[in-house]
């Protein structure tokens, strides 16, 4: 076993406590990152899961999440006539409050034409709306509030019978509810109203070219889907920033934990390090000795952090299903890289101590 490993194992309590400290800091980084990813995924959930790679909105609209888009009448047909368009899917959307028995729920009503698409992409139960005011609601929402297929939900005095439950349709702080477009038009009292159109190009036609062609229409702005999703995400920057700041703080805490442990251990062992230098260890070996202790600690801490993060993320999502914490395999990479950064930064002070050690001091008592 290497000297660095021996030094780490020499004080097992200290090693265990500092590993826990590093792991908790790294876990916090992973969870905060997972929470931001989860928020981002929820914010863009509709656009990410529906067909089409180009979206047409009302001109001047800056995003879909906060601005209201209303297209001029007939836009859908105009788009359908543009060469290269395979499919134009009109969608009417409206934020509403559902009155449930216990409270009001903020929901994003999606009015779509089941024959054209743009509806729920995964049904957990029941079927899509076929007639009247039939709706499909998110299964998590249904579970939280005890809504069952066959029951009705109420919006402003209108009753909507639930005919299906969709999966993966929770959005950030809201939930998607699917209804037939004609029914939503009727509810809003404006027949033929469309918010935006999802456009699918024909095979071999680039979305960029299609976007330019649609932009020729008056009163219409065309977006590549990723552009519109990014625009939606920008509105929530204000939420992400504090989370990123906290992630940075967690990183610093990790650096301080590793740094303090390695620093005190180095100062305690100054004499032995001096002996090593005296009997012939060069500076590179000395730095390696200190750095590898930091690296081993950060690496083990990272592995522990990944386990803890998956466990805590699972707990959060079981206890609070409306939150989405996204931990992808890249989380392991994030943990390892953050750990590496922690190790390198935390080794600065101890390396400085070791570099300053005068080997002749070993003869002094």
């Amino acid at each position, binding site marked *: 076993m290497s000297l660095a490993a021996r030094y780490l194992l020499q004080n097992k309590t200290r090693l265990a406590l500092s590993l826990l400290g590093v792991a908790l800091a790294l876990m916090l980084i992973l969870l905060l990152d997972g929470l931001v990813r989860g928020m981002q995924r929820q914010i863009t959930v509709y656009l990410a899961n529906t067909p089409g790679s180009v979206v047409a909105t009302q001109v001047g609209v800056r995003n879909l999440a906060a601005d209201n888009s209303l297209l001029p009448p007939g836009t859908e047909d105009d788009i359908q006539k543009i060469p290269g368009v395979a499919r134009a899917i009109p969608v009417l959307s409206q934020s509403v409050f559902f009155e449930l028995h216990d409270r009001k729920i903020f929901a994003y009503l999606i009015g779509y034409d089941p024959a054209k698409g743009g509806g729920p992409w995964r049904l957990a139960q029941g079927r899509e709306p076929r007639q009247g005011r039939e709706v499909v609601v998110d299964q998590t929402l249904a579970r939280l509030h005890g809504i069952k297929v066959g029951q009705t939900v109420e919006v402003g005095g209108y009753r909507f019978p639930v005919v299906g439950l969709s999966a993966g349709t929770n959005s950030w702080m809201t939930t998607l509810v699917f209804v037939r477009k004609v029914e939503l038009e009727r509810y809003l009292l404006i027949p033929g109203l469309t918010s935006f159109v999802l456009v699918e190009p024909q095979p071999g036609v680039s979305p960029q070219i299609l976007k330019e062609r649609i932009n020729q229409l008056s009163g219409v702005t065309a977006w590549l889907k990723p552009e519109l999703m990014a625009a939606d995400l920008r509105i929530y920057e204000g939420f992400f920033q504090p989370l990123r700041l906290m992630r940075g703080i967690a990183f610093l805490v990790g650096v301080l934990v590793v740094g303090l442990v390695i620093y005190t251990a180095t100062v305690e062992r100054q004499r032995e390090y001096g*002996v090593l230098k*005296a009997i*012939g260890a060069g500076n590179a070996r000395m730095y390696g000795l200190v750095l590898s202790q930091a690296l081993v600690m950060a690496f083990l801490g990272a592995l522990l952090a990944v386990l803890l993060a998956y466990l805590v993320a699972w707990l959060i999502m079981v206890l609070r299903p409306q939150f989405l914490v996204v931990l992808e395999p890249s989380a392991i990479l994030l943990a390892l890289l953050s750990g590496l950064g922690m190790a390198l930064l935390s080794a600065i002070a101890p390396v400085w101590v070791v570099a300053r050690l005068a080997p*002749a001091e070993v*003869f*002094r008592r």
Partner: protein
Amino acid sequence: MKAQKTAAILRVEDLTKRYGSGTAEVAAVKGVSLEVAPGEVVLIMGPSGSGKTTLLSMLGALLRPSEGSIQLNGTVLTALSERDLPRFRLREFGFIFQDFNLLSALSALENVVLVAEMAGVPRKEARLRATEILKELRLDKRLQALPEQLSGGEKQRVAIARALINNPSLILADEPTANLDSSTGHEVSRLLRHIAKEQGKSVLIVSHDTRIQDIADRVLWLEDGEFKEARTLAIDPVCGMSVERTKSPTATWQGQEYFFCSKGCRSEFLLEPHTFIQGEA
């Protein structure tokens, strides 16, 4: 045994070390010259603060002299760059310290193996070599023991094994017996002489311990940073320190003159002289 080379292995010329600068400047070693032959055991004695440790540190390439030159095996040490010094120390010197300075996290065997590995010896071979040396030093049953589980004498023998593992040409020891009881100290000093004579290594010892005089081929007296001409030293019968005849308090008892390191030792002696000289006669 190797044919005795006439050339000195260590050649020191006009070595000076000054600490500090300006009015605060202290010359700890002043123009010292010295030659040590292969297999020779040299003991350097002198009062506290006379520059012994400073001299030893310079000879071991741990401290740069202010002036003068040191040659070991033909290499001019003082001309080596800072980068090359550690490697040179690793291969050419064996260091032995008063407080052993073993690495507390490593077993006896690992303490020795580490130094061989540092010099580039593959682990397996390093373990074989270290085991062999430790066996010769009668530590075969203590290979896996941690330093804290070893007695003082055992620790110093492990340190000697560590000093020998890379087959250095010069062993430098600073007060190697000071932390050992007298019989263990005697054993360790005899061991050092044995190594010098059997393996042809030069051994340079700095010590207060007068018992080491028995095993030294040559005793040098350092005072105020300079070697004083060889003079007969006397041993303080109370504390066992070696003292200079010309400068120390004296007392005569039963027709014999005794020399002391201090007035304290002298008055202690005069209270009950026979208790101090029984062993001597």
